[in-house]
């Protein structure tokens, strides 16, 4: 009985210490990691390309696939609606916030990055138009091919290639992206 009482006290102490450790160290660290990861997903330079690979499709007509794809790309925090023009193989995204309010440089690099991802994943997508209340940004598959100097083949989405060929050059492209604004 007395030995069992000692075990009970020891177990209660271990339980309380574990509880404190989980709530004061492990969970805050986990939340911080998650917050940092979410933040990284907002920047084209640190975005995790593996999160968008499930949305590869041959056809641009799959609205839910496109919606889900853009939900996993930078600018996913800005409210938007989608419009598809299947005859012109064109996707139009209407953002409800002004580009100036979000930050023009941030928008430019994010739109370039998102477009490369969409063209690489959706085989027959030819044009993407981003409408903001204060501006329109439009890119075609041809524009992208010119920027990248490579065909937007699926192997571009391989993690290392993507890092080197897309994320490594996005800053330099953003500087010359003003021509896409209308």
């Amino acid at each position, binding site marked *: 009985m007395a030995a*069992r*009482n000692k*075990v009970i006290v020891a*177990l*209660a102490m*271990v*339980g309380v210490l574990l509880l404190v450790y*989980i709530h004061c160290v*492990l*969970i805050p660290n986990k939340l911080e990691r998650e917050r940092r990861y979410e933040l990284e997903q907002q920047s084209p330079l640190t975005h995790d390309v593996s999160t968008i690979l499930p949305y590869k499709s041959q056809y641009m007509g799959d609205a839910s696939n496109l919606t889900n794809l853009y939900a996993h790309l930078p600018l996913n925090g800005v409210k938007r609606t989608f419009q598809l023009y299947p005859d012109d193989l064109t996707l139009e995204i209407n953002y409800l916030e002004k580009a100036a309010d979000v930050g023009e440089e941030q928008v430019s690099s994010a739109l370039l990055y998102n477009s490369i991802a969409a063209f690489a994943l959706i085989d027959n997508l030819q044009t993407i138009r981003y409408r903001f209340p204060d501006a329109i940004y439009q890119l075609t598959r041809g524009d992208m091919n010119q920027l990248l100097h490579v065909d937007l083949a699926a192997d571009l989405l391989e993690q290392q290639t993507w890092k080197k060929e897309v994320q490594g050059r996005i800053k330099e492209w953003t500087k010359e992206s003003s021509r896409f604004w209308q």
Partner: protein
Amino acid sequence: MDKIQQHVDRLFRPYKGSKQAQELKQEILSNLQARVADMTMSGVSREAAISSAIANIPSIAHLLDEKPRVFLYRFWVEWVQRVLLFTLIAWIVTMPFRFVGNGTGSNTLLMFIALGIGIVYGGLLLLKRYDRKTGGMNVQAALRLRKIGWLLWVLLMGVSLFYTTALHFGSNLWFSRPIHISGPYQFANVAIDYLKPFVTLLIPLALHMVPKLLMKYEVGEEDGCTE
């Protein structure tokens, strides 16, 4: 070991620890051996005599006092103590559930149950003046309850395993699609869904201890007792 000894051991197996049963055990064994000796003397073969003697005593439940006197305070203190010990172990074992997020409720519930039992246990320890108090407790009913507890628990586990499998993998099994678990987080969630119902193991375990402790704290002839 001869057949009679085996039969007697089997009859008394549920009453291990009962003073009353131990006193009876030797008596029954000698009784059966004498009966076999008598029958073989009168020309019955040994095998037939053993079978007949064994068939004569299929159970000892009717020979034991249904409500033996038990030291109530000692019984309750040890029962509550053991339940508290098991609850604390279950609380600690399920602690990682809190980190994953799934099962935090079960772990919190266990913490409060342990706290409640701890308070009851503390209160019982303060009532030491009732240490010699005795009362009649139904051991047969406790044995039946133990059996029912385990049966219901096995049934509950079967239903729960079926439900969890249907929930996570029902469509994969129905359409013969391979099962895909996307990463460690999803694996942990599925594993926790399977493990969570095992927390209810505390209930049959608590019931399991009752008859054992009733027999342990049975008042023997050598014990003086108070009402």
